């Protein structure tokens, strides 16, 4: 990725090197000043007191709050990524179906789930599950939030994955389909045996980036009372009135996990690019179309 960094400027000469050094010093002083001011402010409000942080980082905090919270976060996201993949595969196939009616109907479903905010979906599912489904005994009432989170994440991310599969198949070189037709495969066989497997290999890195999206969105469960990492951290924080500290720890846990997943996705994209005719660069809902057209090299 260093290529585009060099785009904007020449290799610096002696004068530019001096200027860069000066700018580096200015930036360093600026950052230090900001950090200092924030720390001063925090200190004045007593937020840097050792016990504030100790209570947010001690064994009790980890074993009784962060780890159980993280477990529910990972569990709901993990289940959601699998169910979203199934949902996405089904609708991805339907969107490539030979019949216009099926294509159209699945397009409406996919577009609807992509347009509705995950939080709106979760609110509705929570009410629906706790008021309509739980009384029938199908799920326990206290599990409503858990299932609402999983289902909400499934339909939104499933719709995104369906779109990824469709555009993945569309972006394959057309020689693949022509070759499949030339050896006598039907359209359906060509999709099933030749195109979708390659599109899936190509989208494996994107699937990992989507897992990052799912992990982040699982924190929305906080708003429907699901006990995940954020909820546990808030609870811990209100107990010891160090909510700033506990929320920062929770955010750091998310950042580390998501950063590692993103790195893994980028590395995987490099390894997989020889195994498919499609583009392997990780795609998420915000970069979706652009990566199909421009970033692909």
């Amino acid at each position: 990725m260093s290529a585009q960094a060099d785009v904007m400027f020449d290799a610096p000469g002696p004068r530019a090197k001096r200027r860069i050094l000066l700018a580096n010093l200015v930036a360093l002083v600026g950052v230090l000043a900001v950090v200092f001011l924030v720390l001063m402010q925090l200190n004045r409000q007593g937020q840097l007191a050792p016990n504030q942080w100790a209570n947010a980082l001690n064994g009790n905090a980890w074993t009784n709050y962060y780890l159980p919270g993280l477990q529910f976060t990972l569990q709901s996201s993990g289940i959601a990524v699998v169910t979203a993949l199934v949902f996405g595969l089904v609708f991805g196939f339907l969107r490539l179906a030979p019949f216009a009616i099926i294509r159209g109907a699945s397009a409406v479903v996919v577009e609807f789930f992509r347009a509705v905010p995950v939080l709106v979906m979760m609110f509705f599912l929570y009410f629906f599950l706790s008021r309509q489904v739980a009384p029938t005994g199908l799920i326990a009432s206290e599990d409503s939030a858990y299932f609402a989170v999983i289902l909400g994440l499934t339909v939104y991310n499933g719709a995104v994955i369906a779109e990824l599969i469709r555009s993945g198949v569309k972006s394959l070189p057309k020689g693949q389909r022509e070759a499949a037709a030339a050896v006598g495969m039907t359209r359906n066989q060509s999709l099933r045996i030749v195109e979708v497997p390659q599109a899936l290999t190509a989208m494996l890195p994107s699937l990992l980036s989507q897992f990052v999206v799912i992990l982040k969105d699982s924190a929305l469960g906080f708003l429907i009372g699901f006990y995940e990492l954020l909820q546990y951290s808030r609870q811990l924080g209100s107990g010891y009135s160090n909510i700033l500290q506990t929320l920062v720890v929770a955010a750091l846990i998310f950042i580390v996990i998501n950063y590692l997943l993103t790195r893994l996705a980028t590395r995987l994209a490099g390894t997989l690019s020889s195994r498919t005719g499609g583009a392997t660069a990780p795609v998420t809902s915000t970069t979706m179309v652009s990566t199909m057209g421009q970033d692909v090299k």
Partner: protein
Amino acid sequence: MNGFFELFAEYDVLGAFWMNIKLTALAAIGSFILGTILALFRISPVTSFRTIGTAYINIVRNTPLTIIMVLGVLAVWGQLKVEFFGDFDLNFFAYAVIALSLYHASFVCEAIRSGVNTVPLGQVEAARAIGLTFLPAARIVVLPQALRGAITPLGNTLIALTKNTTVAAAASVAEASGLMSTMIEFNPDLMIYIFLTIAIGFCILVIPMGIVTTWLSDKLAVAR
């Protein structure tokens, strides 16, 4: 359906959506400005600026928006007592706009950077050849082309932002998703109709954005 239309008299559905639109508009401006600055940081010749830009992206993009919102409301307001406006509602509105801007700035930055990648090397070399230094070259030559090449990811970010304004419910801003909760709470037998109303409201907001994005990215594409 009984009593469904009376709901509109009782609850200000349009007003709630107007709140989402206001949040979207203000946070779009905020995140665009911050995102452009960050993008300039990330392509700048100064090493430390690049590091600052990369650090911001890696930290903010990997944090759930919900945490940023809750951190603002419970920690910065609740504990540190930082207040932007004396008015309770306006203050939380400001918190929501700031949280949304900070979060989406990282996506705007990445969108613009992907746009910069579409600008051919020759453009920048030509800019340098006629004596433009970094900032003038960025302002006159690179960014105008990069923004046109970044329409799609920018549009997608705007769509994501529009939907993410619902997270302002965490800052108790009176927007559509919070209103939906209240409406369902008190009218559980109409929940499906209420959900569909709000959901279709978001479809009406979001789907045209997608269409306009596709249209604009074709129309504004730099012919090469």
